[in-house]
């Protein structure tokens, strides 16, 4: 289909082979590059920051606090909340003149706080904050599942040998967490781009030019116009990401298999 020109209203007979024309149109459309650029910047921020935060929090939750279950639930709540509701809340919080966040910043003595979602320079930052917030709980749960597999004796032995907390973290906790970090990294990058698309979030219209996620927003604009050919853009944007994800599933069966067997036993 991506090689054809087709006006849906014309029915099946209206499909016309145009070869690579659609691809040319796509490459000539600088919106696509803007969207790709934003997509990359977004992923490059959300994934590492999210992972580091999640790893730190999950280590603390796993072994250093009372009431582990409460913390898991508390951090997980944003993940199950409806995306539209989250968007509504954050767009109110980020409101340029009246929102609590900017009021707070003014209170700190910042005279001209950024307009966040209404400002093309800052809306990506705001979206990144929201995205990290919304997915953190999910990451934490995955990490904790990984951490639960580390036997307590390792830490005790390290204690006896005189290793301090930082050393224990680097030498015992971190190595087995790596595959999980990897796994959740894929899911994260992928899941975020897929499910928390910037275009679903607040103030879409104003922020759209900056936040065009290369995905649905494009298609959505095209769908009413019945220009299907351009959906090739989605394939291009989505494939590399997805392929890694799949590879992970296939190459990493031990990870999931282990958890699975443990549960049935």
């Amino acid at each position, binding site marked *: *289909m991506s090689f054809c020109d087709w006006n849906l209203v014309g029915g099946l007979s209206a499909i016309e082979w145009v070869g690579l024309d659609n691809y040319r149109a796509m490459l000539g459309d600088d919106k696509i590059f803007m969207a790709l650029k934003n997509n990359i910047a977004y992923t490059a921020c959300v994934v590492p920051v999210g992972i580091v935060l999640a790893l730190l929090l999950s280590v*603390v*939750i796993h072994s*250093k606090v*009372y009431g582990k*279950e409460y*913390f*898991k*639930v*508390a951090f*997980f*709540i*944003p993940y*199950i*909340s*409806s*995306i*539209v*509701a989250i968007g*509504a*809340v*954050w767009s*109110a*919080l980020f*409101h340029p003149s*009246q929102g*609590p966040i900017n*009021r707070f910043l003014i*209170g700190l003595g910042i005279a001209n706080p950024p307009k966040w979602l209404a400002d093309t320079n800052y809306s990506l930052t705001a979206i990144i904050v929201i995205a990290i*917030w919304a997915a*953190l709980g*999910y990451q934490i*749960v*995955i990490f*904790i*599942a990984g951490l639960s597999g580390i036997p307590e004796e390792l830490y005790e032995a390290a204690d006896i040998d005189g290793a301090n907390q930082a050393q224990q973290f680097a030498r015992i906790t971190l190595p087995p967490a790596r595959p999980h970090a990897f796994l*959740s990294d894929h*899911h994260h990058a992928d*899941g975020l781009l897929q*499910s928390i698309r910037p275009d*679903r979030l607040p103030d879409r219209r104003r922020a759209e030019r900056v936040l065009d996620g290369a995905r*649905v927003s494009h*298609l*959505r604009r095209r*769908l009413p116009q019945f220009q*299907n050919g351009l959906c090739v853009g*989605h*394939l291009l944007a*989505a494939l590399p990401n*997805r392929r890694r*994800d*799949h590879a992970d*599933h296939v190459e990493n069966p031990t*990870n*999931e298999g282990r*958890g*699975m*067997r443990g*549960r*049935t036993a």
Partner: protein
Amino acid sequence: MMTRKRKAFKWLTTAVMGAISVLFLTPLIWMASSAAKYEKDVMVYPIQWIPAHWNFANNFKEVWMSNVPFGLFYFNSLKLAAAMTLLTLIVSSMSAFALAKLRFKGRNLAFGLLLSLMIIPNEATLVPRYLLLKWFHLYNSHMGLIVMGMFSIYFTYLLRQFMIGIHQDYLEAAKMDGAGYTLIFLRIMLPLCKPILATVGIIKFIWSWNDYQGPLIFLIRKELYPIPLGMQLFKSEFADNVSLTMMASLSAIVPLLVVFIVLQKQVIQGISLGGVKG
């Protein structure tokens, strides 16, 4: 001495983490508190966490009795999510059973094919799905969404992995006693799979309830809208009224919150089980 110091330290981190978790939930707390306020109090600074003047009942009435039919959206969401969850459970568990426990030619090929289909992003199939629905005259109907929502490779995969862990001896014993596959599936597999079925059901319910893209593209008539779309409609109608928008958001989240808090063990277990992607 050492242990007491440790204990104190643990209490300290618990306190710090408690503070962090409250900070983390601030947006949602703000939402709930705004939903209970008069509009003029919402943007007052410093924030009144506990409303000085309560207006919860009025806001509630206004959201639910306004000319945006919130109750209907609720019903639609419930119907869609329940139907999709139930059908997914049936379809996925049956196919998972076949893929895990039955021996037939090309089983692994079929499984590999399914797995590789998982890499295709939702958006890439939007147009084909749109066309299919049009051809089947299911476009702009709940039926169309349900049919699309009842097949899930991911959950099939999850269930299959679980079923593979169930010992073959159970099946052999049942077979000796003369049970057919239907009986084995119904009487042995399903009861043994209860925990994972619960997990799949809950997660599927949450996802279907929150799904935004599907209804957005495949539904046109407003009477068919589920909650997320209804919320959006509501937002455009009452854009300037933050307290009402927050009340609507709160109403949209509460059922999920209840489901989640009651069944959080299964949800979290399920997520960590397979690294569910969202």
